[in-house]
């Protein structure tokens, strides 16, 4: 029961519950799993996961191509400015739209003015396969900025989606280890982009290398690597 199950696209997943056969409850299928012809199959290659009651199924896979999903924080770069908003590159197939009023406390008279090339931290508001994705620099459900907005200065680099998911966790070992030695700030986007800001370029390079190298290290190795990097500094 404790073995990891690696699935390939096309593998059929047995979602039947052992206890009750009659109850046809709703299954929640996460990323990487789809229903094909009365059966649940894996669509992505990776490790299969489910929750306790076996109602939720998803596949954890690692890719570099981002498909926007609603509610995810992303780091984007402004590429164009339209009348009604900005066109932001978040790594998706279509550029995302950022409305001019999608900022905390923005009114018609009080609008932010972002130049082309600005890095923004935003939340995906609308994402489906038929429309251009739309992002917002505040949480429209709560009305607060929650850390979204323009990211001034700093350095942005790309990483894989799996690493981004691990970094966004507040317990990410590499970030915590780096933070105990260097003052810096970081914004992690689930689209595989990370923005960091430090005082000196040398520390920026150090942190970027540390994060990139931590992809296949476990917690202890991360801490060891960071310790060695900080000592060499």
């Amino acid at each position, binding site marked *: 029961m404790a073995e990891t199950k690696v699935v390939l696209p096309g593998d059929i997943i047995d979602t039947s519950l052992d206890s009750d056969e009659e109850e046809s409850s709703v299954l929640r299928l996460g990323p990487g799993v789809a229903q094909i012809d009365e059966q649940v199959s894996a669509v992505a290659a990776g490790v299969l996961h489910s929750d306790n009651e076996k109602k939720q199924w998803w596949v954890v896979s690692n890719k570099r191509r981002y498909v926007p999903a609603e509610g995810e924080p992303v780091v984007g770069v402004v590429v164009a400015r339209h009348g009604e908003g900005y066109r932001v590159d978040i790594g998706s197939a279509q550029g995302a739209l950022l409305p001019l009023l999608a900022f905390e406390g923005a009114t018609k008279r009080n609008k932010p003015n972002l130049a082309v090339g600005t890095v923004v931290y935003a939340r995906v508001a609308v994402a489906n396969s038929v429309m251009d994705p739309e992002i917002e620099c505040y949480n429209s459900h709560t009305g607060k900025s929650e850390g979204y907005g323009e990211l001034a200065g700093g350095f942005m680099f790309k990483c894989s989606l799996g690493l981004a998911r691990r970094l966004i966790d507040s317990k990410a070992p590499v970030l915590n280890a780096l933070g105990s030695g260097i003052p*810096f700030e970081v914004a992690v986007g689930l689209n595989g982009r990370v923005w960091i800001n430090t005082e000196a370029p040398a520390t920026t390079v150090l942190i970027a290398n540390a994060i990139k190298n931590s992809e296949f290290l476990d917690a202890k190795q991360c801490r060891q690597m960071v310790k060695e990097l900080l000592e060499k500094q």
Partner: protein
Amino acid sequence: MVADKAPQLASEEDRRLSSKLQSMKFMQRSADNAKVAAEKKLERKMIDESHWRATYPDDVVSKERPKLQVVYETSYLKMLPGSSTVGSDSGTGIGGRDSIVAGRRAFQSFNQPVETSNAETGQSVQQSEDDEESESRRTLSARLDNGISSAHNAKPQSSLREKNKQLKRKRN
């Protein structure tokens, strides 16, 4: 014959009339009209008879509910990890039981102004999660208030005061 009642055709009575009368043009015209009308009527009757309606037997549309009812969720953030039976490591879902999703963070007071507002949102999130009190939660709340060093109990009054600006997100 001036008063010619053309609609009221007398095709049966034609036989009683003389052949010379029947060969006259107005008689021919009415006979043709009668023939065309009769053909049209026959055609309409044939078309109506050729139409059919599908008759379904009662059990073709299944009364059973479909066996599989599926709802799709496109984001990894919404996948609550729990303790998955498939896969032994617990760090599968983002923002699991013991950790929260922190998209934007700052260490060692690099970015202070947003920190206070984030600390407030962190406390409100903490209050909403108070019903599940556990050891990890207490350390987490200590960390949010005083920085990472206090959670690790390394140096309570450390000279390196960590100020985390965190992006709090409810797990749901």
